[in-house]
């Protein structure tokens, strides 16, 4: 699991307000080289929660990211290379993600986080206004 994915994941347990960011406990971290693509990083940057990335990178043993960042820094290749490494080249292979509000741990095995909830943790599945099969428009057949 890469840190960009970590930046997009949240705990969806019933009653949890934010559930983000998940706290990383790392048992095994892998590094895999990926082609450097500055445009891709510039596009992703506005979507990032920076502090979650900094803390996540530190949990994976990488402490080179600055505490704060803004879009003006995207001009610097040195900065982009650090973001590239943190976001795309570090992988949490074994460990856990902990919900910041409930302390519930989601295991990560072979790089795959298991975010499945137990039945009593799930919010109601019927969202208001959901596209239920009770709706009656039918255009099949020729009445």
């Amino acid at each position, binding site marked *: 699991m890469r840190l*960009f994915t970590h930046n997009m994941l949240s705990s969806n347990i019933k009653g949890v307000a934010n559930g983000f960011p998940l706290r990383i406990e790392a048992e095994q971290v892998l590094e895999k080289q990926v082609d450097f693509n500055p445009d891709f990083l510039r596009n992703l940057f506005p979507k990032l929660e920076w502090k979650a990335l900094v803390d996540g990178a530190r949990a994976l043993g990488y402490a080179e990211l600055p505490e704060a960042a803004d879009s003006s820094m995207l001009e610097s290749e040195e900065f982009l290379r650090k973001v590239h490494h943190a976001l795309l080249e570090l992988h949490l292979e074994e460990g856990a993600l902990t919900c910041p509000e409930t302390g519930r741990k989601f295991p990560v095995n072979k790089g795959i986080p298991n975010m499945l909830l137990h039945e009593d943790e799930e919010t109601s599945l019927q969202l208001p206004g959901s596209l239920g099969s009770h709706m009656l428009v039918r255009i099949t057949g020729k009445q």
Partner: protein
Amino acid sequence: MSPKTAQIRLVSSHPEVYEPCDDSFALVDALLADRTNILAHRPRLCLEVGCGSGYVIASLALMLGQELPGVYYFATDINPHALRVTRETLDAHAVDAELMCMDIASGLEKRLAGRVDVMVVNPPYVPTPDYEVGSEGIASAWAGGENGRSVIDRILPVADRLLSDKGWLYMVTLTTNDPSQICLLMRKKGYASRIVVQRSTEEESLHIIKFWRDSDIQLDTKENVTTNKSVPARAMDSLVSQFPQLSFWKGTNSNCL
């Protein structure tokens, strides 16, 4: 050189994971048929919900890969075995995606909302008793509840939430799922639709539908879809014309397993 898709001999397997079948091939054929458009669309984030063996997400990554570097692929499945198999399938094809075990996209809905440019779904669409829906293991790949719609009807609002303004959804449906009604429901959410591939086998009639946001569609937020009268005549004509053979198609309850 024709665009590459995943090779069956390189797709991994497990007794509890759905193997690539007619529906998977039809979905990949739809993506291939629309590949030029997808390349021009320049997606950044792609998501497959219910990746199973990994055949579809590996094919998508292969067919876009060379010409579109820097696309980030996510794939989810509710079956942990499926994700292991998908990982092996991706590795065998030297492509990559981020894999997560979750129900539809439950852990991504907050942070990934409005950011997915291409979403592909081969949902569990086979009509089954409702109690079979969400079963563990391979049954989660097909058990679709009443009319095969239980899971599809939960996926549609998630897709609406996750898709970016320019986002596209490709979804497999069976005639029994009442695809024209699915299109009407999505139309109420502002989506246009078209059938990219339709295919009839001995067992089932499949169509792969593409959905995209269309600013020309008037959003009808107050009125519930309860009668034919609330649907504009032009919309009806357009939808009916897409399903010319609908009244002749037979739905069946069988999958190809």
